[in-house]
C-alpha cells in the first residue's frame, strides 16, 4: 500500500503545474477521520503534525487514484451507465434510491436558492433561474427542478441516458419548455456557456469522475459570480466502505454491483479544500442517511457515508495573497448550517 502511495507521490509532483494554487491533502487516514472543518490555516497546523511532512517543502502531493487528465469523463464509468440507460424511470428498479433521494436534494437546492434569490413567483418559486444538472442521467433530478420553475439544462456523456430523459419529459408540456438535455461533457459546455448559470448541481456524480480539478474549474467557469454549486456524494471512510459498497451493492442490492469504487470517494474536507482552491466558499455540509427498510433518506449530523454540500462561487477572483486573508474570515467554528 505504501509503495503505491510513493509512486503516486512522484507522479503527482510532476503534475503539480496543472494546479492553480498549491494544494495540500492530509495523507494520514487518521487525520482524515478527524473530520474537522479545515481551512488553510488549520491545515498548516495539521501538516506540522503529519509524519510525511517532516523535512519536505510546503508542496505536498495529492493522493488520488484518478489519472490527472484534462477531462472529467471516465470511459469505464460511461460504459457502466450505458448498460443501465433504459432503467432510469423504473421506480422500483436499480435507481429507486435516487428517486427517493429527491425528497432530500430537491428541498436542499430549492431552499438554498430561495435564501439567495427569494421566491420569484407563486407556484413556481424558482422561476427565472438557470440551473445546470451535471451528470443528469435520466433526468431524475432535472424534472422536479424544472417543475419548480427553473430553466434546467441537463448534461450527461451517456447518450442513451439523455435520450431516455428527453423522451420522459416530452409528454409534459411544462417540462418540455423548461428542461433541456444535451449529451456532452462539462468541459465542452464550459467553453460555450461562461458564467451562464445561477446554480450547478452535481448529484452523485463526483464519485464517478476522472478528474475533480477539471470539474471544479469548469464549474467555476459556468457559474455566475455568487452562483451556487450543489454536490451530493459519498464520503471516503471505513463506514462508507461497509455501508456504501459492501452492504449497498453486495448484500442489499440497493445499487447494482460495481456502481461505486471506494477509491474514488472523497471526504467533505478534501472536497471543501478543493473547491476553495478554485474560488468557492463552502456554505453548508450535511450528512444524509438511507434507510433500506423504508427506502427513504433522511438528514443526519454525521457525514460519514453520504453528504450534501452547498458552495458559492466567490464574487471576485481570489489572488494568492488574498486567499489567506479570506480564509481567516471563513475560519469560524461550527460553520455548517444546522438544518432541522
Amino acid at each position, binding site marked *: 500500500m505504501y509503495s503505491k502511495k510513493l509512486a503516486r507521490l512522484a507522479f503527482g509532483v510532476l503534475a503539480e503545474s496543472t494546479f492553480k494554487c498549491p494544494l495540500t491533502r492530509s495523507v494520514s487516514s487518521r487525520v482524515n477521520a478527524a473530520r474537522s472543518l479545515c481551512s488553510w490555516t488549520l491545515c498548516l497546523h495539521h501538516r506540522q503534525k503529519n509524519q510525511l511532512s517532516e523535512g519536505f517543502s510546503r508542496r505536498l502531493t495529492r493522493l488520488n487514484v484518478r489519472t490527472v487528465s484534462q477531462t472529467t469523463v471516465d470511459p469505464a464509468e460511461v460504459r457502466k451507465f450505458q448498460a443501465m440507460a433504459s432503467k432510469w*424511470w*423504473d*421506480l422500483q428498479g436499480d435507481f429507486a434510491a435516487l428517486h427517493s433521494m*429527491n*425528497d432530500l436534494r*430537491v*428541498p436542499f437546492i*430549492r431552499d438554498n436558492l430561495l435564501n439567495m434569490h427569494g421566491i420569484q*413567483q*407563486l*407556484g*413556481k*418559486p424558482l422561476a427565472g433561474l438557470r440551473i445546470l444538472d451535471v451528470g443528469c442521467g435520466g433526468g431524475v433530478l432535472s*424534472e*422536479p*427542478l*424544472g*417543475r*419548480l420553475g427553473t430553466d434546467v439544462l441537463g448534461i450527461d456523456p451517456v447518450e442513451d441516458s439523455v435520450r431516455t430523459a428527453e*423522451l*420522459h419529459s*416530452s*409528454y*409534459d*408540456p411544462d417540462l418540455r419548455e423548461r428542461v433541456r438535455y444535451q449529451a456532452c461533457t462539462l468541459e465542452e459546455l464550459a467553453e460555450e456557456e461562461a458564467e451562464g448559470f445561477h446554480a450547478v448541481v452535481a448529484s452523485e456524480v463526483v464519485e464517478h469522475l476522472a478528474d475533480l480539478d477539471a470539474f471544479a474549474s469548469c464549474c467555476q467557469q459556468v457559474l455566475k459570480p455568487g452562483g451556487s454549486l450543489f454536490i451530493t456524494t459519498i464520503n471516503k471512510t471505513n463506514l462508507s466502505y461497509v455501508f456504501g459498497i459492501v452492504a449497498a451493492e453486495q448484500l442489499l442490492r440497493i445499487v447494482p454491483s460495481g456502481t461505486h469504487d471506494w477509491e474514488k470517494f472523497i471526504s467533505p474536507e478534501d472536497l471543501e479544500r478543493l473547491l476553495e482552491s478554485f474560488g468557492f466558499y463552502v456554505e453548508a455540509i450535511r450528512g444524509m442517511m438511507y434507510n433500506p427498510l423504508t427506502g427513504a433518506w433522511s438528514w443526519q449530523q454525521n457525514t460519514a457515508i453520504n453528504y450534501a454540500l452547498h458552495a458559492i462561487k466567490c464574487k471576485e477572483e481570489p489572488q494568492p495573497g488574498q486567499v489567506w486573508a479570506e480564509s481567516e474570515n471563513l475560519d469560524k467554528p461550527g460553520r455548517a448550517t444546522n438544518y432541522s
Partner: protein
Amino acid sequence: MFTFAKARLAVLGTGRRCVALRAFSGALRGVASSESNEESSTSENQLFDVIISGGGMVGTAMACSLGLDPNLAGKKILLLEAGHKKEMDRVPETYSTRVSSISPGSATLLSGLGAWDHIANMRCKPYNKMQVWDACSDALITFDKENLQDEMAYIVENDVIVAALTKQLQTLSDHVKVQYRTKVVKYTWPRPYHVSESIPWVQVTLANGKTLHTKLLIGADGPNSMVRREAGIPTVKWNYDQSAVVAVLHLSELSDTESSLVWSTSHQHAEELLQLDEESFVDAINSAFWSNENHSELVETAGSLFRTALSVLMPDSGSARQLPPSVAGIGPKSRVMFPLGMGHATEYIRHRVAIIGDAAHRVHPLAGQGANLGFGDVAYLTKVLSQAAFNGKDLGKSMQHLLEFETERQRHNLPMMAAVDLMKRLYSTNAAPVVLLRTFGLQATNALPPLKEQIMAYASK
C-alpha cells in the same frame, strides 16, 4: 329562534337485513388501455394538472381549495359536474330538505376558502345542544358545550353550501375551470410504468365526444362513484334496510320556527309516509316523538333504577331534559326519500387517481358526519398535494404522497364509520336485552361529561 337538531335513534320498523357485497374486480393496480392510434403529443389545452369529477359539496370544495393554494398557483384545474350551475342570488323563502350538520372543523375549512361568509349571509343555523332519546325507554343523552354559548355545529342547507362554494370558484376562474352539464362516459387509465408511444396521463372521455387528459384525477362523484368502479377499487358496502324521509317542519312552540327532519325507517314505512297527506304525516311524526307504545315494564323499571343509581353517584350529571317539540305542519312539497347504506372503499388511491367524499366512504346520516368526513378529505388532500408541488413532484405519479393521504384519512374515517354503524345496529331493534343494554349505555355515557367531551371533540374535527 331556537332550533336544535335531533338524531332519531329509535326506528319504527323492525327487521334489518345486511347485505355485504365485496366487489373484487380482480384488476391489478393500474388497468391500462393504451391507445396506439392516439397522437403522442396531446394538445396543450386539453392536458390538465388535476381534474375533479363531481361538483357536489365535496367536489366543489376541493376545486376551491386547490385553486386557492399558493403552491398550486399556475396549475390547471378542471371541475366536471353533470348537473347545472347552482347559483343563489337570494336565498329562497322555502327551506330545502337536504341539510348537513357542519362541524367546527369543516366550518374552519369553509371559512378558509372564503365560502363561509357567503353561507352566513345566506342562511345557516348554529346549534348549541343536541339531545338524543330512545323510543323504547326513557334513556336520553344530551351533548352541549359547557356554557351553551359556544356553538357545537351548524345546520346548513346543502344547496347553500354548494352555491357559496360556486361563488368562490368564480373568483378563481383564471386557473380553475368548471364545466357544467358534462357527463363522463369513460376513463382510461395509464400504465404505472413508462412505456414509449403510450400516453402517461389519465384520459377522460366526455359524453360530447371530447377527450381530456390529466395528471391526477380526483373522484368526488358520490356513493355510486364511477371513478371508483372503473378503477376497480374493491368496496365494502351494504344496504341498510332503511330509507330516510326528509322534510321541513313547522314547530308549534313559537311561530315561524322551522326545523329539519330526517326520519330513518324501513323502506315500506318510508313509502307509506310519503303517501300520507300533510295532516296524517304530522300526526305520524308527533306520535313517533311522544308515544310510549314501545316501552316495556321491564325496561322502564330497570331504566329508572339505573338512573337513580347514577344520580346518587354523580349528582351533577346530565342537564335538564328537553321535551320533544310538537309539530304543527310541514313545509310545502318538501317530503323526499332516499335509500341508506354504508360503503367504504378499501383504497382511496390508485396511480394518478384519488377518491374523496361519499365516493370513498358513505355513512348513515344519524350522526351527521358524512359531509364532515368529506371536508376532512378535502383539507388533507390539498395539504398533501401542496407539499408535493413545492417539492417539484408530479402530482399523480408519486404514490408516496397519495399514500400518506390514504393512510391518514382511513385512520380517521374508519373508527367514525364503525361507530356510526354500531349505533345504527344497536338502535334498530326492540328486543329487550338490546334495549336494556343501550339504555344503560346511554345513561352511563350521559353521566360522564369527560366521555361526552371526547366524543364531541372527535366529531368536531
